[in-house]
């Protein structure tokens, strides 16, 4: 039985593919013209994960970022290797709590901004236990 490797549990993602793994039409008649244009299929790991050892998935349990299209129950992809800059959506650890907010820094003053009117922006007290845990790169939302 010949199965495509991406259906097998040992599948490691398309980056480990060599060109010999690219599927051909395997036509028995006239060689399919499409074989000249064969490529590996689209792989979400390749599209959505830029830096594997630094990438984590997290589940959102609030509507704080609803205006940014991030809903309660969505999964976000978080990359810890990206530097947080103004306007990025980040995961922040503030006084022991994991929050998802817009990050803002002006004159060394940091703020966390929600994407909803129902919550207030948070000014980061310089003495608070605060750390940007990672930067959100994509959101996975089930429709």
């Amino acid at each position: 039985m010949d199965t495509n490797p991406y259906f097998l549990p040992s599948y490691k993602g398309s980056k480990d593919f060599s060109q010999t793994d690219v599927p051909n039409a395997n036509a028995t008649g006239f060689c399919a013209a499409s074989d000249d244009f064969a490529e590996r299929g689209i792989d979400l790991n390749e599209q959505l994960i830029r830096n594997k050892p630094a990438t984590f998935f997290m589940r959102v349990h609030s509507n704080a970022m609803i205006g940014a299209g991030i809903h309660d129950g969505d999964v976000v992809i978080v990359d810890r290797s990206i530097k947080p800059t103004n306007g990025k959506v980040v995961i922040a650890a503030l006084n022991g709590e994991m929050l998802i907010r817009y990050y803002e820094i002006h004159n060394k003053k940091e703020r966390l901004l929600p994407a909803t009117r129902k919550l207030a922006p948070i000014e980061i007290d310089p003495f608070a236990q605060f750390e940007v845990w990672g930067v959100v790169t994509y959101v996975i939302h089930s429709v």
Partner: protein
Amino acid sequence: MKAIVDCNSFYCSCEQVFRPDLKGKPIVVLSNNDGCIISRNPEAKRLGIGQAGPFFKERPIIEEHNVTLFSSNYNLYGDMSRRVMEVLKLFVGEDNVEVYSVDEAFLDVDEFPLQQLHILSEEILHTIKQWTGIQTSIGIGPTKTLSKVANRLAKKHHEIANKIVILDTQEKVIAALQQTPVGDIWGIGRRYADKLLTLGVETAWDVRNLSEAWARQHLGGVVGVRMVKELRGEPALFMQEALTKKKMIATSRMFGEAVTQLADIKEAIATYAGRTAEKLRRQKSAASVASIFLVPQEKIESPHFQHGPTVSTYTILPQPTSLTHELIKAAVTMAVSIFQEGKKYKKAGVIVSGLVPDNAIQANLFEEGKSIGRFLMDMVDNINFSMRGDVVKFAASGVTRNWKMRQQQLSPRYTMRWEELCEVK
């Protein structure tokens, strides 16, 4: 130069990455079955909680100081370890990393000029912390053993050394050796340490100055010679290739509660046999010898702490196999033969050895071909791996599982399971 990178309180750190509320608070990780303490963070160490101690002994301190407990979550630790190792491979190249254990790796940094090693070390530590949240320390020396000496100092004096110690001059090597007690040298166990101390050999510097002939005679032959050479800065231990195929495979667990019924023992043995067969197939091996062991509970009433004698037996399989049902059959038969009514058991295990490649199994004239069994096993493995769990299993391995190990404080598998992701508000 060789380097060793070592994660600080690794299991605890893995737990803390996802629990910012535990920052600066004492936590400990317990062994399988929640029996012993196997990892403590610095805050827990400061409370005086002992390493590798039985959990019940430390219970008073743990309760008094509200120490957070975790059952070991090897799923999470394995993934975090892989991330750390991947970062190291990015820095020095895949061929120059030897993963020594789940939280340690040797690096061959010969390609880097001496004066760049400090910057390289800083970059490595910073990147691992940034990308994975794990704090590491690094020791560099002319040999593996000296890198270990350096790493010990890096951890011990972390405030001054900033978790980096590089022994790049002869003076530094000498100073480091003089500060290292014999018991802390990599490769010297307690027995040799005691022996050396009675002979007046107190530090690594003293060991370095022993003659090779003496080391050969008194420090375990060639192993001792290598150690002395390594301490002198002459490499005698080289980077090792990863062990991709094991020569022996074992699966054993403590029971959650003492087990007295044969039915439970049979279930447990069948489960471990199933897991063992799976591991065999994963490395494309087949086993020719199967053995099992049962560990009775120690008698608590007796004045001396007594380990009940382990009972074990083995059988030579009619033909090397990696098929679950064949291994279960052999293992359960053995379990029945050594089980004793009225005894309480606390642990059991299955071990296979005499491993051969599974495509070169010597056919036995009196046995039928196994190709169908192998096809079935591949299907079962496929389903179990892709569904993540024992979805399809043999009935012999049980449905009640009274004996299952205790893991009361297990944290979510944050990085491996879609249903157990870390939650954010």
